[in-house]
C-alpha cells in the first residue's frame, strides 16, 4: 500500500456506522449548524454508490422528494454525521446503481435481499 493511502486511513476517526452498500435504504442523521445552534436533520433514501477510500470515502444517497429526485453526497467519516440507520438492505447486482436515475414508478423499486 502506498503512503498516501496508509496515512489517509490514519487521519480518520472511524464512526460507528452500520455496514451499508449500494442498493440499501438508509437514514442519515446529520448535524447542521444555524448560527450558534446545532440541530439534527435526517435524509432518507437509497444508497447508489460508495466511492473512494480512507478519509476521502464518500457515499451518494438518492430519494424522491415531492416528485423531484434529490441526490446528496456525504463523506463517510464526516464528523457532522450523527448516526446512520439501515432500513432495508437491497438486492442489486451492481456496486453503482446509476440506472435507477432513468427509472420511475414501479420500475424504480429495489428488491429486498433475504439472508
Amino acid at each position: 500500500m502506498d503512503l498516501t493511502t496508509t496515512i489517509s486511513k490514519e487521519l480518520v476517526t472511524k464512526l460507528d456506522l452500520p455496514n451499508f452498500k449500494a442498493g440499501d435504504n438508509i437514514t442519515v442523521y446529520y448535524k447542521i449548524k444555524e448560527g450558534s445552534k446545532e440541530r439534527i436533520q435526517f435524509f432518507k433514501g437509497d444508497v447508489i454508490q460508495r466511492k473512494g477510500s480512507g478519509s476521502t470515502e464518500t457515499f451518494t444517497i438518492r430519494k424522491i422528494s415531492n416528485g423531484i429526485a434529490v441526490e446528496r453526497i456525504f463523506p463517510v467519516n464526516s464528523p457532522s454525521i450523527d448516526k446512520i440507520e439501515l432500513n432495508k438492505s437491497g438486492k442489486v447486482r451492481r456496486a453503482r446503481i446509476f440506472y435507477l436515475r432513468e427509472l420511475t414508478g414501479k420500475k424504480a423499486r429495489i428488491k429486498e435481499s433475504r439472508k
Partner: protein
Amino acid sequence: MPGLLGKKIGMTSMFSEEGKNIPCTILEVGPCVVSQIKTNEIDGYEAVQIAYDEQKESRMSKALMGHLKKANSKAVKKMVEVTPFDIEVNLGDILTVDLFEEGSFVTVVGTSKGKGFQGVVKRHGFAGVGDATHGQHNRLRAPGSIGAASYPARVFKGMRMAGQMGNERVKVENLQVLKIMSDRNVIIVKGAVPGAKNSYIIIEK
C-alpha cells in the same frame, strides 16, 4: 530560515474540529544530514548544505562520497544549500521533522509540473481571436497583435508569448502545518504544493 529537504507524497483531506473537510498535502521530510557548513571566511557566503534521500554507495562518485564521509553521512540522492539557516548546526547533525511545530506556517519550494511548449491561451490566459465559425480560418488560439508598426518599430520586452510552461521553481508561502508524524518523518500541510508526486521539495520554517 532553517529548511529541510523532502518529497511530496500526495494529497488527501482531513476533517477539522468544526467538521470542515480540509484539503491537505502529505510531505515526507528528512531526516537530513548537515553535509557542509559554508562560511564567509572560506566560501565568501554563509549557507548550510543538507543531504537527503539515501541510496546505494555504488551509485555515487568517489569524490562526492568523500565529501559526504566528512559529515559521516550515507550515500544520498539529493543535496541542497539553504541560506540563511537561522539555527546553530554542526557538521554531521541530523535534522528531522521535529524542527517544525503543528499549527505554524511554512514555506514550500518545489518544481512545478512541466507542461511543455504552450500557446498563449493556456500559458497566459488569452482569449484567442474571434469566432470559431463565420469564415474564421486558423487564428482561433492565436495571440493577435503584439504591438504597433513603425513606432516603436520593435516588440516590447516582456511581451507575453508562447513558450515553455511549468517545470520551474515555485515557492508557496504560508502553508499551515496541520499534523506532524515524527515516527514516519511526515508533515501534513494545508493546501497544495507545487510539483508532481515523489518530486523533491524544500520546506522552510
